[in-house]
């Protein structure tokens, strides 16, 4: 791999999250270890007749309780508001908020955040006013007339997927290299991996990374329902997210944000930072197979995991815990299991593999960052979060999925997987910091 002796070691020094199970890391963690579930009937819109009527929503959250500059964010979309709360917490957790004379051009951002939420009501009304049923087409003249004054310029602009980034940069006042990647469900793991590469090569001293997303809106749920990707277990939503279970029937949409602070080891040491863990491996790959299906042998996930292990210089037996992508769709859980077996061989069955999506739902672009935070906490507390709702094992899925109850286990090295629709795959590996 890379033999450049000048490359930097990269450590994690801060974390923050806003999720359906709480608005701070410790509350979320306690809920996850207790096997609590954040899923409930959807309230963001009237989903009463949708195939899926439930989701994992963030409740009673006000970003103004977290930010220093609420005046910058008046128009911010929902995902951006989640990001601001998580980023502020991560920033404070890292202690960087107390450091004077930061070189802010050397502090960058790499987010994997989603697009903002559509102004559904006005959008639909405008389209319908312009609909020509005979031609089965939009009349652009009528559309332009109907649109005039119907839309708020800020709300429209905020939908672009770089706006979360812009708000977090403004809130924290950081001006280094700034990116947003949107590789579907892999986005925030990818963002963290790419932020690590930027620090490793010396293009910044500190990177704030993670993701934020909400697709709990009418067209988001429509899109996933049409793909038959969501669970439709409306009679028992609290048990609907059941990764690796024989009766799993799809994932459950969640929302929120996870953010971490990454630094070069030199920078962290120089300021006496508390180091949570070292990031030692990142792998990214493309299935290059089909838009609709994952490669049946899992060649993309295998490639990402192997690349991350190689970069970390580890053997499969060195991994103590795998935070699975574990969405709860038939296909994902089968193929992920196959890919883990291919990469880890004989060691696979003795490595705990769990999915916190069983409790948090699937935060889409934000999922990977929140899951990496659970890996940091697993390492800190020597506790592995469970996969809940796993009462009926799938005979084809035979790994140790940490069913239903958290487990005490020392974790020195953890691996986190995220795989996106369309075949973008990312893996990161963290290790307990050892100077």
């Amino acid at each position, binding site marked *: 791999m890379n033999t450049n002796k000048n490359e930097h070691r990269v450590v994690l020094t801060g974390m923050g999250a806003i999720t359906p199970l709480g608005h701070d890391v410790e509350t979320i963690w306690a809920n996850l270890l207790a096997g609590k579930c954040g899923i409930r009937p959807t309230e963001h819109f009237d989903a009463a*007749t949708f195939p899926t009527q439930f989701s994992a929503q963030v409740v009673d959250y006000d970003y103004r309780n977290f930010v220093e500059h609420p005046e910058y964010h008046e128009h911010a979309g929902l995902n951006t508001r989640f990001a601001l709360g998580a980023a502020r917490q991560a920033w404070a957790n890292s202690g960087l908020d107390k450091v004077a004379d930061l070189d802010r051009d050397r502090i960058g951002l790499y987010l994997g955040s989603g697009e903002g939420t559509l102004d559904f009501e006005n959008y639909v009304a405008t389209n319908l006013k*312009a609909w020509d049923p005979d031609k089965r087409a939009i009349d652009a003249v009528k559309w*332009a007339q109907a649109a005039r004054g119907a839309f708020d310029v800020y709300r429209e602009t905020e939908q672009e997927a770089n*706006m979360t980034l812009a708000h977090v940069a403004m809130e924290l006042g950081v001006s280094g290299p*700034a*990116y947003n990647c949107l590789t579907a469900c892999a986005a925030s793991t990818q963002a963290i991996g790419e932020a690590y590469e930027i620090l490793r090569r010396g293009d910044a001293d500190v990177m704030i990374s993670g993701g934020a997303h909400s697709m709990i809106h009418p067209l988001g749920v429509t899109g996933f329902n049409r793909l038959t990707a969501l669970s439709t277990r409306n009679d028992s939503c609290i048990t609907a997210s059941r990764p690796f279970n024989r009766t799993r029937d799809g994932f459950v949409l969640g929302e929120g944000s996870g953010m971490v602070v990454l630094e070069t080891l030199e920078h962290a040491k120089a300021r006496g930072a508390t180091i949570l863990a070292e990031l030692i491996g990142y792998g990214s790959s*493309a299935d290059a197979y089909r838009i609709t299906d994952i490669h049946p042998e899992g060649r993309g996930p295998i490639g990402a995991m192997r690349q991350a292990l190689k970069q970390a210089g580890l053997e499969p037996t060195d991994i103590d815990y795998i935070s699975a992508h574990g969405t709860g769709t038939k296909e994902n859980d089968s193929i992920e299991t196959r890919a883990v077996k291919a990469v880890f061989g004989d060691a696979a069955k003795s490595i705990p593999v769990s999915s916190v999506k069983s409790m948090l739902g699937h935060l889409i672009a934000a999922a990977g960052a929140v899951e990496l935070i659970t890996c940091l906490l697993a390492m800190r507390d020597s506790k592995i979060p469970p996969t809940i709702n796993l009462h009926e094992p799938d005979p084809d899925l035979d790994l140790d999925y940490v069913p239903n109850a958290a487990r005490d286990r020392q974790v020195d090295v953890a691996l986190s997987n995220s795989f996106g629709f369309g075949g973008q795959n990312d893996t990161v590996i963290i290790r307990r910091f050892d100077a």
Partner: protein
Amino acid sequence: MSRRVVITGLGTLTAAGVGIEALWQTVTAGQSSLDRISNFDPSRFDVQIAGEVRDFKIAKFVPKSYRKATKVMARDIELAVAAADQAVRHAGLNTPGIDPEADRTYPGSRSGCHIGAGLIAADLDELTDALATSTDDDGKFDMHQWGSEGMTHLTPLWLLKYLPNMLACHVTIIHDSQGPSNTITCGEASSALSIGESMRIIERGDADLEFCGGAESKLNPMAFYRQISTGRLTTKANDAPAGAVCPFDAEASGTAIGEGGGIITLEAHETATARGANIYAELVGYGGSHTIYPQGHGLEPDPEGKGIAAAVRAALRNAKLSPDDIDLIIPTGSAIPAYDRSEAAALKSVFGDRLGQIPLWSSKPYVGNCGAGAGGVDTALASMMLTEQTLPARINCNSPIEGLAAASAPSHAAALNHVLVLTTSLGGQNAALILKKA
């Protein structure tokens, strides 16, 4: 020692046509391709002009076995797929997507793909056809009808047309590119950021070939309306589109939207020379930054352009060059007065008085602002300028901002060693690339 990275294939789809040759011909002839919108009737929009890619059928740009998949391609995806096809052919590379029978140039594991994308707008005809099934007696939308029945009028794969990562996903599938893959969504800076990150991937040895750049189309009533409402587009040239966009000119009144795909192939210098590739330019510098200017509320730029200058300085440092080494600048040059002044201030702070001697050249008067595709188009053009040692015509600038070498001029020969390509986004991300004559 990190590896050298070269540009070996240029693929563009713009209002000037399909392929880099068509674009090059247009810019050297000094003829704008902006025109009245034909994709929909723009007569009730405040802006009625744009740079449309016309006479373009995606089926010609994918292998026969892949034609079915074009049904799930939004316009942005089509532009990216076709631009990637053009780039691969221009580079003389073979992939399974070009000729599955012949030997491929690089194994899939050594090929990566980073593509910049924007917010993809849903096709309104398709969506509204389904929405219209769920209305009450007053013609108002009824969510209950939609949930129980209406949504089934949308094709099951509907969502997959609009995920930004699908640009890269289709390209990776067609060309069997299994290496590092990413989708960067940073507005107009997306392409240049994806090119810069691809450069780093090759430098550190994680791939030998990278597809990079970006594509976007905002020529959809909703997406177009969003752009108009930001106040960034000129409303004064609906009758004279060719003269609409006037970067750095006293008469500048805003920009125009262009559809654009700009994908280039990067290769490691060692593997490119081993296969005897044509090298159009070497990529020697890259830097990124974020503008912090909360006073602008997201719609106004920092008048001092500090963030933009930081990206340029980072790229110069990375290239181990001084400002005196730059012979030509391809800035964003959007012709939005406040943004032009911000960019000019940034350049002035880096290049000092010598800025007056460095030509500024903008593609916007020709093809408009191609959004996430803009940096790919500009990098392709910069590569051509270095190869041909020609500075194409500059148009629509009769009274440039003082101290800028931006005045209209015909195409002419020019000794070019280093070209700076600079992109800035609405939102504040900045990216600078430096290309060197091969």
